[in-house]
């Protein structure tokens, strides 16, 4: 941590720090100074993590630690970004907030998780937040660790020049990460292939194809429908939807022949304009299912996936 009391200091906006740990006890030791400093100064401590980590943090630091309500299986980078931004917007930010997150590393979530990590620097750069990202070392490959080091610069000064320089390189990083690798299943024949379908027909076909599979089907149908409408409105025909039920994960791809979104934050923040102005559909999809995106010679492809057993909420 950057200062003796564990906080980033008053002259600093966002502290976006990477915490690699081996086991919960080490995690508690590593984040302890920052969490205790926040509690001592009466600042909110918010945790978004798997239930065992949340429980351990509360046992060590007390019940005043707040946790985000989402279940572990439903935690997604865009949703966490939205929740921390909401918390800051409604006044929690009167104090310097300590936000501890254990991002869910799943097969399908990594491509957008690393984009979200880069986006945090730009979206929250001027906010007084200690944003501690805890990753279990064994869950990461060496490539993942390197990419995380690139997106976790530690304290980001609020002074304009260094912040701008840093933001520029992070923006390039974010924009360059529309390169999710093609999944192995994509080289196999899909169970469902639709070319330029009406959204209503696509939704019914997805529902039929997923009959008997225990996933949050409503979430997948809504996410696919939103991305299909985006492809039709903003992409280039033909728009092709494919679905693989898979042995452990349902994968849906939506491809169009265009160049993809121009906004590097695509899906990670709501554009929030009037109805139909765009941006919201992708942001919603990112909160409902795992999303990966790529731009290549085939055009722009968005890959939506959900693990089997991901039960609906509520």
């Amino acid at each position: 941590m950057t200062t003796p009391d564990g906080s980033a200091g008053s002259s600093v906006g966002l502290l976006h720090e990477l915490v690699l740990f081996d086991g919960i006890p080490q995690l508690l030791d590593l984040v302890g100074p920052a969490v205790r400093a926040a509690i001592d100064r009466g600042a909110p401590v918010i945790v978004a993590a798997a239930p065992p980590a949340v429980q351990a943090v509360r046992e060590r630091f007390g019940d005043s630690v707040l946790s985000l309500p989402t279940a572990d299986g439903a935690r997604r980078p865009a949703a966490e970004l939205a929740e921390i931004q909401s918390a800051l917007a409604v006044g929690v930010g009167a104090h310097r907030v300590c936000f501890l997150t254990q991002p869910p590393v799943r097969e399908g979530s990594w491509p957008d998780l690393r984009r979200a990590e880069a986006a945090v620097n730009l979206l929250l750069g001027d906010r007084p937040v200690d944003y501690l990202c805890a990753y279990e070392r064994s869950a990461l490959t060496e490539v993942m660790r390197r990419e995380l080091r690139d997106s976790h610069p530690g304290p980001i000064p609020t002074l304009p020049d260094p912040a701008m320089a840093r933001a520029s390189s992070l923006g390039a990083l974010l924009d360059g990460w529309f390169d999710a690798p093609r999944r192995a299943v994509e080289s196999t024949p899909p169970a469902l292939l639709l070319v330029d379908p009406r959204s209503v027909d696509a939704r019914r076909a997805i529902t039929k194809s997923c009959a008997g599979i225990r996933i949050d089907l409503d979430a997948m149908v809504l996410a696919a429908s939103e991305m299909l409408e985006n492809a039709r409105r903003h992409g280039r025909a033909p728009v092709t939807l494919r679905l693989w039920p898979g042995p452990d994960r349902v994968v849906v791809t939506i491809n169009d022949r265009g160049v993809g979104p121009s906004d590097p934050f695509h899906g990670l923040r709501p554009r929030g304009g009037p109805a139909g102005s765009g941006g919201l559909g992708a942001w919603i999809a990112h909160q409902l299912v795992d999303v990966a995106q790529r731009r290549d010679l085939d055009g722009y492809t968005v890959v939506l996936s959900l693990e089997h057993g991901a039960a609906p909420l509520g």
Partner: protein
Amino acid sequence: MSDVLRVTQARRGPGDHICWSFRGKSEFVQGARSLVSEGLERRERVAIAGPNPPDVLVDMLAGVAGVEPALASGQLILADDAALPGADPSGDPVREMAVLDAMTRDAVDSGFSGLRMVADVVHRVIDPQRRQSYLGFEHLFDRFCLDHPFTAVCSYDIEVLGPESTALLACLHRTATPEIASFHLGASSNADIALTGSLDGAVVDDLRRALGAVESFLGPSLRVSLSSLEFINHRALLVLDQFGADNGCSVELLDAPVIVERLAGMLALSAVRVVR
């Protein structure tokens, strides 16, 4: 028989409000003959209405089993559309409800199971301005059908009206060809309106205009039943929210699926709220 008539045949009966979008006169004649025959068999009083004079209507029904005795007994009525308030372009179509109410009571008092009206109404909505005001009438008509032993078949010639105008009118009917209207805004027994079917970006303009049909009946809140909703996306929810904000009313969603509640929560809507 056209698809919508075939699909709805088994459950067609009192309370139904059907939009039958036909193509051309011969399809209308074929469908009307079938609908009249079915109503007579079900012991309903059948009224057939449209711009055609009575002798043309009689010719149209020639050969349908039971037509002549039904005409003689009063089970079959050739209604003069020009005499109905809804046909008057300068009048308020809402006045037609009182006429239909009296006709329905008379049918029941005469021993019939209800009143079935098969109406060719395309001439009523040719004028675009008239069409917009007619949406309110169709919504009231939907409510009337729900509350009375009345079966309405509103027949619109899609070749005359065009698919877009037909779709807008169709979404205010309880039953319509799915290819024409993917959603329905109608009367509900436990809310102010019900939204059924599938609402996405393709229909947000129709939803916005269909909501205009209920503006004149609005109170401080609009309770919307979603118990038979198939799907709604964020753009349609934003239309509902904007409608509430524009009219200073809250839009209360009843029986909303969990996914709709999640979506509404993400959008931080100002007028829409999910009621449990």
